[in-house]
Protein backbone atom coordinates (compact mmCIF):
# COMPACT_ATOMS: atom_id res chain seq x y z
CA UNK A 1 0.00 0.00 0.00
CA UNK A 2 1.06 3.55 -0.75
CA UNK A 3 0.10 6.36 1.56
CA UNK A 4 -0.56 9.80 0.11
CA UNK A 5 -2.60 12.87 0.89
CA UNK A 6 -5.59 13.74 -1.26
CA UNK A 7 -7.32 17.05 -0.53
CA UNK A 8 -5.75 17.09 2.93
CA UNK A 9 -6.94 13.60 3.76
CA UNK A 10 -4.26 10.99 4.47
CA UNK A 11 -5.17 7.87 2.48
CA UNK A 12 -3.64 4.56 1.43
CA UNK A 13 -4.10 3.02 -1.99
CA UNK A 14 -2.80 -0.06 -3.72
CA UNK A 15 0.53 0.05 -5.40
CA UNK A 16 0.40 0.60 -9.14
CA UNK A 17 -2.75 2.67 -9.14
CA UNK A 18 -2.86 6.08 -10.72
CA UNK A 19 -3.79 9.27 -8.92
CA UNK A 20 -7.09 9.24 -10.78
CA UNK A 21 -7.93 5.73 -9.63
CA UNK A 22 -6.93 6.58 -6.08
CA UNK A 23 -9.04 9.73 -5.97
CA UNK A 24 -12.06 8.05 -7.54
CA UNK A 25 -11.77 5.07 -5.22
CA UNK A 26 -11.96 7.46 -2.31
CA UNK A 27 -14.89 9.35 -3.76
CA UNK A 28 -13.22 12.52 -5.01
CA UNK A 29 -14.75 13.27 -8.37
CA UNK A 30 -12.42 14.06 -11.25
CA UNK A 31 -13.96 14.62 -14.67
CA UNK A 32 -12.43 12.70 -17.57
CA UNK A 33 -12.93 12.45 -21.28
CA UNK A 34 -10.16 10.44 -22.93
CA UNK A 35 -9.87 8.09 -19.97
CA UNK A 36 -11.80 4.85 -20.11
CA UNK A 37 -11.64 1.81 -17.97
CA UNK A 38 -10.23 -1.09 -19.94
CA UNK A 39 -8.17 1.15 -22.19
CA UNK A 40 -4.62 2.25 -21.52
CA UNK A 41 -4.24 5.74 -19.99
CA UNK A 42 -3.53 8.31 -22.66
CA UNK A 43 -3.51 11.76 -21.05
CA UNK A 44 -4.77 13.58 -24.12
CA UNK A 45 -7.76 15.60 -22.97
CA UNK A 46 -6.15 17.10 -19.82
CA UNK A 47 -9.54 17.31 -18.19
CA UNK A 48 -8.37 15.21 -15.26
CA UNK A 49 -5.72 17.74 -14.16
CA UNK A 50 -4.87 17.76 -10.48
CA UNK A 51 -2.32 19.77 -8.54
CA UNK A 52 0.51 17.87 -6.90
CA UNK A 53 3.22 19.04 -4.51
CA UNK A 54 3.21 22.08 -2.29
CA UNK A 55 4.29 25.69 -2.37
CA UNK A 56 6.25 26.91 -5.37
CA UNK A 57 6.88 23.35 -6.51
CA UNK A 58 3.22 22.58 -6.94
CA UNK A 59 2.35 21.65 -10.51
CA UNK A 60 -0.51 20.44 -12.61
CA UNK A 61 -0.42 16.89 -13.93
CA UNK A 62 -2.92 14.66 -15.67
CA UNK A 63 -4.10 12.32 -12.94
CA UNK A 64 -5.00 9.51 -15.35
CA UNK A 65 -1.34 9.00 -16.25
CA UNK A 66 0.32 9.97 -12.97
CA UNK A 67 1.14 7.04 -10.71
CA UNK A 68 0.32 7.33 -7.01
CA UNK A 69 3.56 7.82 -5.08
CA UNK A 70 4.48 7.54 -1.43
CA UNK A 71 3.95 10.87 0.34
CA UNK A 72 2.37 12.57 -2.67
CA UNK A 73 0.21 15.59 -1.88
CA UNK A 74 -2.70 15.90 -4.30
CA UNK A 75 -5.40 18.55 -4.63
CA UNK A 76 -8.19 17.62 -6.99
CA UNK A 77 -10.22 20.82 -6.73
CA UNK A 78 -7.95 23.72 -5.87
CA UNK A 79 -8.63 27.09 -7.47
CA UNK A 80 -5.75 26.50 -9.91
CA UNK A 81 -7.09 23.09 -10.90
CA UNK A 82 -10.60 24.39 -11.47
CA UNK A 83 -9.30 27.29 -13.56
CA UNK A 84 -7.22 24.96 -15.72
CA UNK A 85 -10.12 22.57 -16.08
CA UNK A 86 -12.48 25.33 -17.16
CA UNK A 87 -9.97 26.46 -19.73
CA UNK A 88 -9.69 22.91 -21.08
CA UNK A 89 -13.47 22.70 -21.39
CA UNK A 90 -13.62 26.08 -23.08
CA UNK A 91 -11.05 24.95 -25.62
CA UNK A 92 -12.90 21.70 -26.22
CA UNK A 93 -16.08 23.72 -26.76
CA UNK A 94 -14.24 25.83 -29.28
CA UNK A 95 -13.40 22.81 -31.38
CA UNK A 96 -16.43 20.54 -30.92
CA UNK A 97 -19.39 22.66 -29.82
CA UNK A 98 -21.99 20.12 -30.91
CA UNK A 99 -20.81 17.35 -28.59
CA UNK A 100 -23.35 16.57 -25.91
CA UNK A 101 -20.61 15.23 -23.63
CA UNK A 102 -18.65 18.46 -23.81
CA UNK A 103 -21.75 20.62 -23.43
CA UNK A 104 -22.69 18.72 -20.30
CA UNK A 105 -19.20 19.14 -18.93
CA UNK A 106 -19.35 22.87 -19.61
CA UNK A 107 -22.65 23.21 -17.84
CA UNK A 108 -21.45 21.20 -14.88
CA UNK A 109 -18.29 23.25 -14.47
CA UNK A 110 -19.88 26.62 -15.01
CA UNK A 111 -18.35 27.39 -18.37
CA UNK A 112 -20.91 29.74 -19.90
CA UNK A 113 -18.95 31.34 -22.69
CA UNK A 114 -16.38 30.44 -25.25
CA UNK A 115 -13.86 33.10 -26.17
CA UNK A 116 -11.93 31.36 -28.92
CA UNK A 117 -12.45 31.20 -32.65
CA UNK A 118 -15.34 28.83 -33.09
CA UNK A 119 -14.58 25.69 -35.05
CA UNK A 120 -16.81 22.80 -35.87
CA UNK A 121 -14.57 19.79 -35.67
CA UNK A 122 -16.01 16.36 -35.19
CA UNK A 123 -13.00 15.01 -33.31
CA UNK A 124 -11.01 16.08 -30.27
CA UNK A 125 -8.27 13.52 -30.98
CA UNK A 126 -8.75 11.89 -27.59
CA UNK A 127 -7.74 8.56 -29.11
CA UNK A 128 -10.45 6.56 -27.38
CA UNK A 129 -11.56 4.91 -30.60
CA UNK A 130 -7.97 4.16 -31.61
CA UNK A 131 -7.29 2.47 -28.30
CA UNK A 132 -10.63 0.69 -28.34
CA UNK A 133 -9.92 -0.69 -31.80
CA UNK A 134 -6.45 -1.86 -30.85
CA UNK A 135 -6.79 -2.94 -27.25
CA UNK A 136 -10.30 -4.31 -26.98
CA UNK A 137 -11.14 -5.27 -30.55
CA UNK A 138 -7.62 -6.37 -31.49
CA UNK A 139 -8.10 -4.86 -34.92
CA UNK A 140 -5.97 -1.74 -35.45
CA UNK A 141 -8.19 -0.60 -38.25
CA UNK A 142 -8.01 3.08 -37.37
CA UNK A 143 -5.19 5.22 -36.10
CA UNK A 144 -3.73 8.70 -36.04
CA UNK A 145 -2.63 10.16 -39.33
CA UNK A 146 -0.63 13.24 -40.14
CA UNK A 147 0.45 15.67 -37.48
CA UNK A 148 -0.04 19.12 -36.11
CA UNK A 149 -3.25 20.80 -37.16
CA UNK A 150 -3.68 18.17 -39.84
CA UNK A 151 -3.72 15.29 -37.42
CA UNK A 152 -6.75 13.13 -37.87
CA UNK A 153 -8.13 9.74 -37.02
CA UNK A 154 -9.18 7.27 -39.64
CA UNK A 155 -8.26 4.31 -41.75
CA UNK A 156 -5.19 4.20 -43.99
CA UNK A 157 -5.87 6.00 -47.28
CA UNK A 158 -9.40 6.75 -46.07
CA UNK A 159 -10.51 3.46 -47.52
CA UNK A 160 -12.53 0.78 -45.87
CA UNK A 161 -10.06 -1.15 -43.76
CA UNK A 162 -9.45 -4.84 -44.39
CA UNK A 163 -9.07 -5.51 -40.67
CA UNK A 164 -12.21 -3.63 -39.63
CA UNK A 165 -15.02 -5.95 -38.55
CA UNK A 166 -17.64 -3.20 -38.45
CA UNK A 167 -17.99 -3.72 -34.72
CA UNK A 168 -18.85 -0.09 -34.13
CA UNK A 169 -16.72 0.00 -30.99
CA UNK A 170 -15.00 3.18 -32.13
CA UNK A 171 -18.32 5.00 -32.31
CA UNK A 172 -19.55 3.50 -29.09
CA UNK A 173 -16.68 5.01 -27.10
CA UNK A 174 -16.48 8.30 -28.97
CA UNK A 175 -17.33 11.31 -26.80
CA UNK A 176 -17.99 13.50 -29.83
CA UNK A 177 -18.88 10.93 -32.49
CA UNK A 178 -15.91 11.33 -34.75
CA UNK A 179 -16.75 8.73 -37.34
CA UNK A 180 -20.41 9.42 -37.92
CA UNK A 181 -20.01 11.63 -40.95
CA UNK A 182 -18.51 8.94 -43.11
CA UNK A 183 -22.02 7.72 -43.94
CA UNK A 184 -22.24 9.68 -47.15
CA UNK A 185 -19.28 7.91 -48.73
CA UNK A 186 -19.99 4.18 -48.52
CA UNK A 187 -16.56 3.26 -49.92
CA UNK A 188 -14.77 4.98 -47.09
CA UNK A 189 -17.09 4.06 -44.32
CA UNK A 190 -15.68 2.35 -41.27
CA UNK A 191 -18.79 1.08 -39.56
CA UNK A 192 -21.77 2.52 -41.36
CA UNK A 193 -22.17 5.60 -39.26
CA UNK A 194 -25.69 6.46 -38.31
CA UNK A 195 -26.98 5.04 -41.55
CA UNK A 196 -29.54 2.65 -40.11
CA UNK A 197 -31.39 5.43 -38.40
CA UNK A 198 -32.92 6.18 -41.82
CA UNK A 199 -31.55 9.64 -42.37
CA UNK A 200 -33.33 11.06 -45.42
CA UNK A 201 -30.13 11.81 -47.25
CA UNK A 202 -28.88 8.32 -48.10
CA UNK A 203 -30.06 4.97 -49.30
CA UNK A 204 -30.33 2.83 -46.25
CA UNK A 205 -29.90 -0.59 -47.84
CA UNK A 206 -26.21 0.05 -48.44
CA UNK A 207 -25.77 -0.19 -44.71
CA UNK A 208 -28.57 -2.46 -43.65
CA UNK A 209 -26.44 -4.97 -41.73
CA UNK A 210 -24.53 -2.45 -39.68
CA UNK A 211 -24.97 -1.37 -36.10
CA UNK A 212 -25.24 2.14 -34.85
CA UNK A 213 -24.77 3.58 -31.43
CA UNK A 214 -25.58 7.17 -32.21
CA UNK A 215 -28.97 7.76 -30.82
CA UNK A 216 -30.20 10.32 -31.55
CA UNK A 217 -28.17 11.01 -34.65
CA UNK A 218 -27.66 14.59 -35.70
CA UNK A 219 -25.27 14.03 -38.56
CA UNK A 220 -27.76 14.86 -41.29
CA UNK A 221 -28.73 18.17 -39.77
CA UNK A 222 -25.11 19.18 -39.51
CA UNK A 223 -24.33 18.07 -43.03
CA UNK A 224 -27.23 20.07 -44.47
CA UNK A 225 -26.15 23.36 -42.92
Amino acid at each position, binding site marked *: MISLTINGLPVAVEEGSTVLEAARFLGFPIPTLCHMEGLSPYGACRLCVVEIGEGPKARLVSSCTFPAQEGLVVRTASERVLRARRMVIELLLASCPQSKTIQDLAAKHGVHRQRFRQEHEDCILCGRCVRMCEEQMMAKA*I*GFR*GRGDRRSIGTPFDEKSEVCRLCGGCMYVCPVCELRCTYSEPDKVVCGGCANLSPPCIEKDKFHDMMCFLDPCVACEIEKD
Partner: protein
Amino acid sequence: MALRELKMAESIAPVADTMEPQSIERLIEENAQAPAALIAILQAIQREHGYLSAAALREVSRATGRPLVDVYGVATFYRAFSLHPRGKHVVSACLGTACHVRGAHAVVGEIERQLGIRAGGTTEDREFSLETVNCLGACALGPVVVIDGHYVSKVGKEKVRPLLDDARRGRVGGRNDGEATSLSLVAHCSHCRASLMDPDHPFDGLPSIRLAMKGPGATGWWRISSRYGSNKRETNSTAPRGTVLSVYCTHCGEDLSDGWKCPACRAPLVSLGVGELARLRVCPRLGCDGHMLDVAS
Protein backbone atom coordinates in the same frame (compact mmCIF):
# COMPACT_ATOMS: atom_id res chain seq x y z
CA MET B 1 26.90 32.29 -30.80
CA ALA B 2 24.85 29.78 -32.64
CA LEU B 3 26.41 26.58 -33.83
CA ARG B 4 24.60 24.36 -36.19
CA GLU B 5 25.41 21.17 -37.87
CA LEU B 6 24.33 21.09 -41.43
CA LYS B 7 23.27 17.83 -42.85
CA MET B 8 23.66 17.32 -46.50
CA ALA B 9 20.49 16.54 -48.31
CA GLU B 10 20.69 13.33 -50.20
CA SER B 11 19.92 13.67 -53.82
CA ILE B 12 16.52 12.38 -54.74
CA ALA B 13 16.25 9.76 -57.39
CA PRO B 14 14.00 10.48 -60.33
CA VAL B 15 10.44 9.26 -59.90
CA ALA B 16 9.81 5.85 -61.31
CA ASP B 17 6.40 5.44 -62.85
CA THR B 18 6.11 1.83 -61.81
CA MET B 19 7.43 0.28 -58.64
CA GLU B 20 8.39 -3.32 -59.05
CA PRO B 21 7.40 -5.41 -56.04
CA GLN B 22 10.79 -7.16 -56.04
CA SER B 23 12.61 -3.93 -55.45
CA ILE B 24 10.33 -3.07 -52.51
CA GLU B 25 10.95 -6.51 -51.07
CA ARG B 26 14.67 -6.11 -51.48
CA LEU B 27 14.65 -2.72 -49.76
CA ILE B 28 12.69 -4.16 -46.86
CA GLU B 29 15.00 -7.14 -46.55
CA GLU B 30 18.03 -4.90 -46.52
CA ASN B 31 16.59 -2.95 -43.61
CA ALA B 32 14.49 -5.48 -41.75
CA GLN B 33 17.14 -6.73 -39.30
CA ALA B 34 16.60 -3.90 -36.85
CA PRO B 35 13.36 -4.10 -34.88
CA ALA B 36 12.68 -0.38 -35.14
CA ALA B 37 13.53 -0.23 -38.81
CA LEU B 38 10.21 1.08 -40.09
CA ILE B 39 11.45 4.60 -40.69
CA ALA B 40 14.64 3.35 -42.32
CA ILE B 41 12.62 1.13 -44.64
CA LEU B 42 10.29 3.95 -45.59
CA GLN B 43 13.27 6.25 -46.12
CA ALA B 44 14.90 3.71 -48.40
CA ILE B 45 11.76 3.34 -50.49
CA GLN B 46 11.32 7.09 -50.59
CA ARG B 47 14.93 7.53 -51.67
CA GLU B 48 14.76 4.99 -54.44
CA HIS B 49 11.30 5.73 -55.79
CA GLY B 50 10.73 9.31 -54.75
CA TYR B 51 7.47 8.54 -52.99
CA LEU B 52 5.60 5.90 -51.02
CA SER B 53 2.82 4.26 -52.98
CA ALA B 54 -0.17 2.64 -51.34
CA ALA B 55 1.05 -0.74 -52.57
CA ALA B 56 4.48 -0.10 -51.08
CA LEU B 57 2.99 0.76 -47.67
CA ARG B 58 0.84 -2.37 -47.74
CA GLU B 59 3.90 -4.43 -48.64
CA VAL B 60 5.90 -2.86 -45.79
CA SER B 61 3.05 -3.64 -43.42
CA ARG B 62 2.91 -7.24 -44.59
CA ALA B 63 6.68 -7.82 -44.52
CA THR B 64 7.32 -6.20 -41.15
CA GLY B 65 4.18 -7.57 -39.54
CA ARG B 66 3.10 -4.12 -38.40
CA PRO B 67 -0.48 -2.97 -38.77
CA LEU B 68 -1.01 -0.91 -41.90
CA VAL B 69 -2.45 1.88 -39.82
CA ASP B 70 0.87 2.25 -37.96
CA VAL B 71 2.88 2.31 -41.17
CA TYR B 72 0.46 4.83 -42.64
CA GLY B 73 0.62 6.90 -39.48
CA VAL B 74 4.40 7.13 -39.64
CA ALA B 75 4.36 7.82 -43.38
CA THR B 76 1.92 10.70 -42.97
CA PHE B 77 3.62 12.07 -39.85
CA TYR B 78 6.98 12.95 -41.35
CA ARG B 79 7.35 15.63 -43.98
CA ALA B 80 10.23 13.69 -45.52
CA PHE B 81 7.80 11.10 -46.79
CA SER B 82 5.54 11.76 -49.72
CA LEU B 83 2.54 9.61 -50.59
CA HIS B 84 2.29 11.03 -54.07
CA PRO B 85 4.78 10.85 -56.92
CA ARG B 86 7.01 13.85 -56.88
CA GLY B 87 8.49 15.73 -59.77
CA LYS B 88 11.81 15.00 -61.39
CA HIS B 89 13.26 18.02 -59.64
CA VAL B 90 12.45 18.63 -56.01
CA VAL B 91 12.65 22.23 -54.90
CA SER B 92 12.72 22.75 -51.13
CA ALA B 93 12.47 26.32 -49.99
CA CYS B 94 13.42 27.13 -46.41
CA LEU B 95 10.86 29.11 -44.42
CA GLY B 96 12.78 29.06 -41.16
CA THR B 97 13.00 32.20 -39.07
CA ALA B 98 16.22 33.52 -40.59
CA CYS B 99 15.13 32.84 -44.15
CA HIS B 100 11.67 34.21 -43.39
CA VAL B 101 12.98 37.61 -42.29
CA ARG B 102 15.10 37.75 -45.41
CA GLY B 103 12.10 37.38 -47.62
CA ALA B 104 11.77 33.66 -48.16
CA HIS B 105 8.03 34.04 -48.53
CA ALA B 106 8.49 36.23 -51.57
CA VAL B 107 10.86 33.63 -53.00
CA VAL B 108 8.37 30.84 -52.41
CA GLY B 109 5.63 32.98 -53.96
CA GLU B 110 7.81 33.57 -56.99
CA ILE B 111 8.58 29.85 -57.37
CA GLU B 112 4.87 29.07 -57.02
CA ARG B 113 4.07 31.64 -59.68
CA GLN B 114 6.72 30.40 -62.08
CA LEU B 115 5.77 26.77 -61.70
CA GLY B 116 2.06 27.35 -61.40
CA ILE B 117 1.78 25.11 -58.33
CA ARG B 118 1.30 25.64 -54.63
CA ALA B 119 3.86 24.58 -52.06
CA GLY B 120 3.51 20.83 -51.59
CA GLY B 121 2.36 20.35 -55.16
CA THR B 122 3.86 18.88 -58.31
CA THR B 123 3.66 20.35 -61.78
CA GLU B 124 1.46 18.54 -64.27
CA ASP B 125 4.40 17.53 -66.41
CA ARG B 126 5.99 15.92 -63.32
CA GLU B 127 9.04 18.11 -63.76
CA PHE B 128 8.97 19.99 -60.45
CA SER B 129 7.77 19.48 -56.93
CA LEU B 130 7.84 22.38 -54.53
CA GLU B 131 7.95 21.92 -50.82
CA THR B 132 8.71 24.18 -47.93
CA VAL B 133 10.86 23.17 -44.99
CA ASN B 134 11.15 24.81 -41.63
CA CYS B 135 14.91 25.06 -41.34
CA LEU B 136 17.83 23.70 -43.28
CA GLY B 137 20.37 24.83 -40.71
CA ALA B 138 22.12 27.21 -43.09
CA CYS B 139 20.61 30.30 -41.52
CA ALA B 140 23.54 32.60 -42.27
CA LEU B 141 23.13 31.89 -45.97
CA GLY B 142 19.40 32.46 -46.26
CA PRO B 143 17.07 32.50 -47.99
CA VAL B 144 18.15 28.96 -48.83
CA VAL B 145 16.60 26.86 -51.56
CA VAL B 146 17.61 23.26 -52.15
CA ILE B 147 17.17 22.02 -55.69
CA ASP B 148 17.80 18.33 -56.31
CA GLY B 149 19.95 18.13 -53.21
CA HIS B 150 22.07 21.17 -54.05
CA TYR B 151 21.98 24.07 -51.65
CA VAL B 152 21.56 27.47 -53.22
CA SER B 153 22.23 30.38 -50.91
CA LYS B 154 20.89 33.94 -50.74
CA VAL B 155 18.12 33.36 -53.23
CA GLY B 156 16.20 36.46 -54.27
CA LYS B 157 13.12 36.66 -56.45
CA GLU B 158 15.24 37.51 -59.47
CA LYS B 159 17.29 34.35 -59.02
CA VAL B 160 14.28 32.06 -59.23
CA ARG B 161 13.81 31.92 -62.99
CA PRO B 162 17.46 31.15 -63.87
CA LEU B 163 17.54 28.56 -61.10
CA LEU B 164 14.47 26.76 -62.37
CA ASP B 165 15.78 26.95 -65.93
CA ASP B 166 19.06 25.42 -64.78
CA ALA B 167 17.23 22.70 -62.92
CA ARG B 168 15.14 21.91 -65.96
CA ARG B 169 18.35 21.42 -67.93
CA GLY B 170 19.75 19.34 -65.10
CA ARG B 171 22.47 21.88 -64.48
CA VAL B 172 21.99 22.95 -60.89
CA GLY B 173 25.23 22.07 -59.22
CA GLY B 174 26.53 20.80 -62.54
CA ARG B 175 29.86 21.65 -64.08
CA ASN B 176 28.53 24.28 -66.44
CA ASP B 177 27.35 26.88 -64.01
CA GLY B 178 28.51 25.70 -60.67
CA GLU B 179 29.83 29.07 -59.62
CA ALA B 180 26.56 30.78 -60.32
CA THR B 181 24.11 28.58 -58.54
CA SER B 182 25.73 26.42 -55.93
CA LEU B 183 27.25 26.98 -52.58
CA SER B 184 31.03 26.85 -52.80
CA LEU B 185 33.00 26.75 -49.58
CA VAL B 186 36.15 28.83 -49.97
CA ALA B 187 38.44 27.37 -47.35
CA HIS B 188 41.54 28.78 -45.76
CA CYS B 189 43.98 27.53 -43.13
CA SER B 190 42.83 28.56 -39.70
CA HIS B 191 46.46 29.05 -38.62
CA CYS B 192 48.14 31.01 -41.42
CA ARG B 193 44.90 32.05 -43.20
CA ALA B 194 46.37 31.13 -46.60
CA SER B 195 43.83 29.92 -49.13
CA LEU B 196 43.62 26.17 -49.57
CA MET B 197 41.71 26.34 -52.84
CA ASP B 198 43.25 24.59 -55.82
CA PRO B 199 41.67 25.79 -59.09
CA ASP B 200 43.97 23.53 -61.12
CA HIS B 201 42.23 20.40 -59.87
CA PRO B 202 38.51 21.10 -59.96
CA PHE B 203 36.05 18.76 -58.24
CA ASP B 204 32.37 19.02 -59.16
CA GLY B 205 33.19 22.00 -61.35
CA LEU B 206 34.68 23.98 -58.48
CA PRO B 207 38.23 24.41 -57.23
CA SER B 208 39.04 21.59 -54.83
CA ILE B 209 40.44 22.12 -51.35
CA ARG B 210 44.01 20.81 -51.26
CA LEU B 211 45.60 19.61 -48.04
CA ALA B 212 48.76 17.75 -47.06
CA MET B 213 48.34 14.39 -45.39
CA LYS B 214 50.43 11.90 -43.53
CA GLY B 215 49.16 8.34 -43.44
CA PRO B 216 50.87 5.12 -42.40
CA GLY B 217 54.12 4.87 -44.36
CA ALA B 218 53.33 7.64 -46.80
CA THR B 219 52.86 11.37 -47.10
CA GLY B 220 51.06 13.14 -49.89
CA TRP B 221 47.93 15.08 -50.70
CA TRP B 222 44.28 14.89 -49.73
CA ARG B 223 41.71 16.78 -51.75
CA ILE B 224 38.12 17.42 -50.86
CA SER B 225 35.35 18.98 -52.87
CA SER B 226 34.48 22.55 -51.98
CA ARG B 227 30.89 22.10 -53.17
CA TYR B 228 28.48 22.11 -50.29
CA GLY B 229 26.58 18.85 -50.56
CA SER B 230 29.39 16.89 -52.20
CA ASN B 231 31.35 14.30 -50.29
CA LYS B 232 33.95 13.80 -52.97
CA ARG B 233 37.40 13.18 -51.54
CA GLU B 234 40.65 11.94 -53.10
CA THR B 235 44.12 11.11 -51.86
CA ASN B 236 47.26 9.48 -53.17
CA SER B 237 47.42 7.37 -50.02
CA THR B 238 47.07 3.65 -50.64
CA ALA B 239 46.13 2.92 -47.04
CA PRO B 240 43.00 0.78 -46.55
CA ARG B 241 39.54 2.17 -45.77
CA GLY B 242 39.19 3.06 -42.14
CA THR B 243 42.69 4.54 -41.83
CA VAL B 244 42.70 7.95 -40.17
CA LEU B 245 45.00 10.40 -41.95
CA SER B 246 46.82 13.21 -40.25
CA VAL B 247 46.11 16.36 -42.23
CA TYR B 248 48.23 19.52 -42.41
CA CYS B 249 48.11 22.91 -44.06
CA THR B 250 50.04 22.94 -47.32
CA HIS B 251 51.39 26.41 -46.50
CA CYS B 252 52.39 26.49 -42.83
CA GLY B 253 52.43 22.76 -42.10
CA GLU B 254 50.27 23.11 -38.98
CA ASP B 255 48.12 20.17 -37.90
CA LEU B 256 44.54 21.07 -38.78
CA SER B 257 42.66 19.05 -36.19
CA ASP B 258 41.04 21.19 -33.49
CA GLY B 259 39.78 18.70 -30.95
CA TRP B 260 36.32 18.07 -32.47
CA LYS B 261 35.38 14.48 -33.08
CA CYS B 262 33.65 13.08 -36.14
CA PRO B 263 29.92 12.65 -35.43
CA ALA B 264 29.97 9.39 -37.37
CA CYS B 265 33.21 7.64 -36.35
CA ARG B 266 34.79 9.72 -33.53
CA ALA B 267 38.03 10.36 -35.47
CA PRO B 268 39.54 13.83 -34.82
CA LEU B 269 38.07 16.19 -37.40
CA VAL B 270 40.10 18.39 -39.72
CA SER B 271 39.02 21.99 -39.25
CA LEU B 272 39.11 24.61 -42.03
CA GLY B 273 38.09 28.26 -41.98
CA VAL B 274 35.37 29.24 -44.42
CA GLY B 275 34.82 32.95 -44.93
CA GLU B 276 34.94 35.03 -41.78
CA LEU B 277 32.37 33.14 -39.77
CA ALA B 278 32.07 29.55 -40.75
CA ARG B 279 34.13 26.51 -40.07
CA LEU B 280 34.12 23.34 -42.12
CA ARG B 281 35.08 20.17 -40.28
CA VAL B 282 35.79 17.06 -42.29
CA CYS B 283 36.55 13.55 -41.13
CA PRO B 284 40.00 12.41 -42.30
CA ARG B 285 39.14 8.72 -41.99
CA LEU B 286 39.30 7.04 -45.38
CA GLY B 287 35.82 5.93 -46.36
CA CYS B 288 34.05 8.06 -43.76
CA ASP B 289 31.77 10.85 -45.00
CA GLY B 290 31.58 12.61 -41.65
CA HIS B 291 31.58 16.38 -41.82
CA MET B 292 29.98 19.40 -40.27
CA LEU B 293 29.66 23.04 -41.21
CA ASP B 294 29.49 25.37 -38.25
CA VAL B 295 28.12 28.80 -38.93
CA ALA B 296 28.83 31.17 -36.09
CA SER B 297 26.96 34.43 -35.77
